[in-house]
């Protein structure tokens, strides 16, 4: 047998370190609870913000980032500018433009549930003329009923955006469904799904350009001829990766005479910004988690100090059985770390479970950042070491004879 007795074998050391936990499991559980709550809060906050961000990014991915919007801006002299009637046709000729749709906002036309509604109660809804290929370009679809076609585009027929339908009190499409649009009745053909890339469409009633010209007087004169238009928004799908190149040309192409009166934007930017905001975790809850961790640490330190006082005779006995000061110190330090890490692991599991439940309810992917769970367990470890250090040193310095003195 060697004379080396500095350290117990790992298994023995672990068994000795769990003596206190096994002797008083309820107390151990309660003192680990504080750390568990703190870790759960931190992991939950980080996990939820990461998951909600992942959800938004997935949505952006689905909608595509290659959509550009061209809109009429402001005149240099003041007042609203208009896009030229032929802007869509010109943009089509640009390289890397794959698809293009457009709508024309009729500012003086409003939509109501019926003819009895006072004029002022327009509910913030807009009336737009639309090209027929709007849905594929915006990557949206019809929730109820049907979209416009060549025939219905010429008739007093409208399709409602999701918000518009909601405000007009419609959750489905019936055959005789009508709305009061521009001082006449329009039939409702369908209701659209939400369009996250262009929220304006959600609060619009959409009609065909021919119908807009015929029933709503939405015309401009081109060389003495009446034509429906002009469009106010043009939606352009570009080849992926060529967004910037196309974007730089759009204003000049849409309105060569006054490119400054054209606004060009990338709607997915808004969603990307929202995703970044969602990724920024809630610092209030994070702060609460840290406070809970600190309280937990104080709890563990407190329990360890009490434990050393209570277990004086155990310490004395172990010294009599041949434990060195270092072995006593290691025992109590390991016990404290073990206690804190158990709390940390339970907390991480609880935080992950909370994130998983919430994310799956919201339909997001469950994302637990590595820093969240590894940081949670690591901070529990550090807390355990910190909280246990003073009690462990005290235990090791207890003179064996004092420890053996009867209570």
């Amino acid at each position, binding site marked *: *047998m*060697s*004379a*080396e*007795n*500095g350290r*117990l*074998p790992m*298994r*023995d050391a672990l068994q*000795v370190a769990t*003596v206190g936990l*096994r*002797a008083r499991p309820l107390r151990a559980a309660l003192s680990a609870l504080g750390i568990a709550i703190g870790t759960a809060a931190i992991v939950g906050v980080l996990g939820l913000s990461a998951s909600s961000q992942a959800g938004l990014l997935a949505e952006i991915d689905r909608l595509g980032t290659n959509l550009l919007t061209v809109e009429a801006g402001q005149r240099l002299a003041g007042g609203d500018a208009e896009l030229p009637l032929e802007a869509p046709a010109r943009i089509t000729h640009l390289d890397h433009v794959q698809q293009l749709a457009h709508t024309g906002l009729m500012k003086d036309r409003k939509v109501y549930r019926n003819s009895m509604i006072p004029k002022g109660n327009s509910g913030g809804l807009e009336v737009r003329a639309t090209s027929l290929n709007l849905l594929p370009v915006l990557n949206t679809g019809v929730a109820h009923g049907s979209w416009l076609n060549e025939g219905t585009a010429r008739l007093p027929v409208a399709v409602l955006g999701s918000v518009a339908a909601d405000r007009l009190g419609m959750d489905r499409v019936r055959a005789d469904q009508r709305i009061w649009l521009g001082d006449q009745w329009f039939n409702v053909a369908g209701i659209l799904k939400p369009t996250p890339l262009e929220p304006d469409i959600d609060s619009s009633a959409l009609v065909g350009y021919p119908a807009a010209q015929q029933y709503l007087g939405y015309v401009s004169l081109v060389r003495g001829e009446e034509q429906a238009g002009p469009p106010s928004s043009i939606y352009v799908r570009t080849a992926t990766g060529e967004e910037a190149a196309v974007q730089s040309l759009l204003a000049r192409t849409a309105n060569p005479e006054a490119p400054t009166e054209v606004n060009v934007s990338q709607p997915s930017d808004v969603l990307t910004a929202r995703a970044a905001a969602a990724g920024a975790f809630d610092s209030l809850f994070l702060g609460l988690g840290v406070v809970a961790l600190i309280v937990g640490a104080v709890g563990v330190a407190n329990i360890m100090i009490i434990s050393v006082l209570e277990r004086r*005779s*155990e310490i*004395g*006995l*172990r*010294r*009599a*059985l*041949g*434990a*060195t*000061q*270092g*072995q006593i110190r290691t025992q109590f330090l390991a016990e404290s770390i073990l206690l804190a890490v158990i709390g940390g692991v339970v907390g991480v599991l609880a935080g992950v479970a909370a994130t998983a439940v919430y994310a799956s309810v919201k339909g997001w992917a469950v994302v637990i950042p590595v820093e969240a769970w590894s940081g949670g367990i690591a901070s529990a470890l550090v807390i355990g070491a910190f909280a246990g250090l003073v009690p462990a040193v005290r235990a090791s310095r207890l*003179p*064996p*004879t004092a420890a*053996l003195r*009867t209570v």
Partner: protein
Amino acid sequence: MSAAPVLELEGVSKVYREQPPVHALHGVTFSVQRGELVAIVGPSGSGKSTLLHVMGTLEQPTDGVIRINGVEASRLDDRALSLLRAREIGFVFQQFFLAEHATVRENVADGLLYAGVPAAVRYMRADEALERVGLADRATFKPTRISGGERQRVAIARALVGRPAIVLADEPTGNLDSTTGASIMGLIHELNADGATIVMITHDAGLADQLPRRIRMLDGRVS
């Protein structure tokens, strides 16, 4: 080596630096040979507990020399002293000091925990030691489920499990009724007959008179 006493004290003094200083031991000199059964007897306050702690290397003497199996204890550091206690000295206390959440076998095996003995060997030796004290059938019990006399037998088994050079027993019958105490004394005699060197501390002169050798303490001196 075989001639060397198991335990030797030469002019051992212990002064506790309190106000006023307490002279617990004054020049105590004696030695214990292998296989002896010795009683250290004296009234309370005579210094027997301090003597036990000093013999057990739990406390360093202020002055004088202690040798255990020829090794001078006062020259050793904490590690070496701990190993000496783990290998050469077995303790039996009045209050037993058993771990209540652990089984009888685990308690006995703990006697070898710090001696660098692998777990399997510890448990094997624990079973042997339990056999020696007549508790083989209690190995899986928790200490709370056995009687006081059985608990002291477990503590004695724990002291013997490492086959120490010397067993130091501090009032081993102090917490027991007279019948149980008598059976523990019977066990101590038996173990001594089997070769164990035992030093027993007691305030009970009648008990001490049963033992072959007595060292009487009074006011910190051997009288």
